[in-house]
């Protein structure tokens, strides 16, 4: 991290550590929109970390965005910060001015005709809250007003809103973008991988801390070798995910990073399965209660590992490409990236 990145990391982590209290997360899970926090994030420019300065953004790189996204995951911020970062970036790429208000991203069966967007988007993060949604239709980036959209509310396992939106001739702006057809899924996978890296760091830190506090048989459970070995595994899985996410973000400055993004999402998925299991095992029954906050991270990891393509989905496409390139191309390809 360079000096500016250290400052960014300190400030975003500081802000979220202070604001994202257990009460805030719980009330968000009960359906209350954390308006004050959202306004603060917007005021701090965090949703526009990837927007060029000329367009009113922070002019950051994906490496900078990773810091914000990891923090969002680490502190389990219950609002669409990652989605907004992505949506703002997509809009900037397409040269469409970003509107005020909550922004999200949408995937679904959508058609654009005469400047109006119609169709159904499923599992839209905070669809109920968003004023606008960003979608990719054909080669066009579309910014649609969600004013008249009908909303069928739903949630994921982490009780984050994942709503079905039906749009009929929604007012929309669009512009062609030079992005792959699956860009929304791809970059969605990237932001989730970053969030997962943050959440895994939290799990490791929290679980180590708990093991040092909780006493059984007259000593902290962290003194038992069986627990130590498990915690070592948890920490190494978190570290692997962190660097995989960083690598994907760094690769974007060279252009296409579809390969590295797939790697990051697969790695994050694998790590999540191992790490959530260890974190719960070490926490015992208390970690299985709603009262204890561990599950805010573990439930998110269980959802996020499947969102924007599960590891299995990315692994299949990565594997097909690898096999198609041929056995002897594997090493040259990996080292040329």
């Amino acid at each position, binding site marked *: 991290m360079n000096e500016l990145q250290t400052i960014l990391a300190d400030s975003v982590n500081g802000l979220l550590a202070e604001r994202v209290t257990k009460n805030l997360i719980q009330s968000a899970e009960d359906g209350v929109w954390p308006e004050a926090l959202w306004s603060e994030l917007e005021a701090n420019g965090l949703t526009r970390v990837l927007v060029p300065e000329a367009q009113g953004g922070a002019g950051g790189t994906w490496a900078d965005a990773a810091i914000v996204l990891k923090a969002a995951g680490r502190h389990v911020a219950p609002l669409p910060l990652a989605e907004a970062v992505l949506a703002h970036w997509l809009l900037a790429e397409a040269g469409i001015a970003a509107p005020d208000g909550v922004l999200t991203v949408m995937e679904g069966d959508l058609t654009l005709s005469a400047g109006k967007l119609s169709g159904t988007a499923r599992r839209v993060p905070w669809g109920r809250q968003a004023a606008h949604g960003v979608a990719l239709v054909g080669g066009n980036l579309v910014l649609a007003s969600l004013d008249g959209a009908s909303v069928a509310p739903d949630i994921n396992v982490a009780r984050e809103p994942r709503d079905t939106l039906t749009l009929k001739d929604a007012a929309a702006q669009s512009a062609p973008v030079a992005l792959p057809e699956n860009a929304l899924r791809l970059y969605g996978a990237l932001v989730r991988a970053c969030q997962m890296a943050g959440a895994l760091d939290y799990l490791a830190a929290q679980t*180590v801390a708990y093991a040092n506090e909780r006493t059984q048989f007259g000593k902290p459970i962290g003194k038992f070798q069986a627990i130590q070995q498990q915690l070592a595994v948890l920490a190494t899985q978190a570290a692997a995910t962190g660097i995989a996410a960083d690598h994907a973000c760094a690769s974007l400055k060279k252009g296409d990073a579809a390969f590295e993004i797939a*790697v990051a999402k697969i790695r994050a998925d694998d790590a999540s399965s191992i790490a959530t299991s260890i974190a719960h095992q070490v926490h015992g029954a208390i970690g299985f209660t709603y009262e204890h906050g561990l599950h805010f991270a573990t439930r998110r990891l269980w959802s996020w590992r499947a969102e924007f393509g599960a590891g299995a989905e990315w*692994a299949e496409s990565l*594997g097909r490409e690898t096999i198609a390139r041929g*056995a002897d191309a*594997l090493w040259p390809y990996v*080292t040329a990236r």
Partner: protein
Amino acid sequence: MMQAFRFDLCELPDETRGLRADVRAFLATELAKVPAVTRAQTWSGSDPEFSRKMGAKGWIAMTWPKKYGGHERSAFDRYVVLEELLAAGAPVGAHWIGDRQSGPLLMRFGTEEQRQKILPRVAKGECYFCIGMSEPDSGSDLAATRTRADKVEGGYKVNGTKLWTSGAHTAHYMIGLFRTHLDPQNKHAGLTQFLVDLKTTEGITIRPIRDLAGKAHFNEVVFQDAFVPDDMLVGTEGGGWNQVTAELAFERSGPERYLSSFILMVEMIRELEKRGGAEGAREIGRLVAHLVTLRQMSLSVAGMLDKGENPALEASVVKDLGAIFEQDMPVRAHELLGIEPTVGAGSDYEQVLGYLTQTTPSFSLRGGTREILRGIIARGLGLR
């Protein structure tokens, strides 16, 4: 926040590209006729002729000072050469230990005379080392070392047994960890490292030990009143524990700790080129994701070494994750393809699977067991 260990991204400088191409072209010719099952041995395979060629190319001792026969190149140049050798399955075993740890150890703790005498030959690919740490009663508990070096006129008299010593039968020197002083209260004290000339010292018996696959590459080395002169003491008397800890950081930090099964991955893909199917693609995709991530972690360790930092903890992380990856490979291959591994005959895939199925148990033993590495990581996390 977790500060226990840090993996910063480290990008290989563009200047390494030409070097990579050179190494690759050289290996394409050198290894053209070497069967996959032989290449699968990578750094366990030994070929002095190949090592001398490497020396002539300047691909041993790459980062060492020129006055010791080195080439004063960057840690990244060295990393590129190492990973190319491993990925191609080059028989680098003869010079590997000297290049990786014994040479650097001498550079750090050895006398000027020891360096002058030995290092240039290591750099030429002519002088090989083995590691004399483990003993019958001292495996993970390295400080339980019993082999004694008792002070006598002009040197030390060594008695005891080193075990599992890889390559002792071909090596010119061993760096041995011996007990020069016994303090029952403090077993880490009183250990000393020595250079032992295996070719000329009397009183040393080297017996090969066949591994479960029938190959003999590690040994029992018995010392009976073997005389080691004073000028062969490495570093300080009684400072062996600290020195050996530094040496283990070199031993654990390289890309060989995740690439030992790479040849099988290549052969798996070759099989799947014929078969197709979603299941195989998913498996390969997962393995690629782990490979690429481990490579980034390994590069990060190389970057720390280049900056003169001490990546001992990070190296343990990579070695632990790397061994899981290497050991997972034959299991995945078996579950996916269900082809019986073979020995001595059969397709490349079958033979490589036969070799690695039998070899992978050692990957989480040699160089420090999985449990010991995780103990080190747990200490880094503040649990011990």
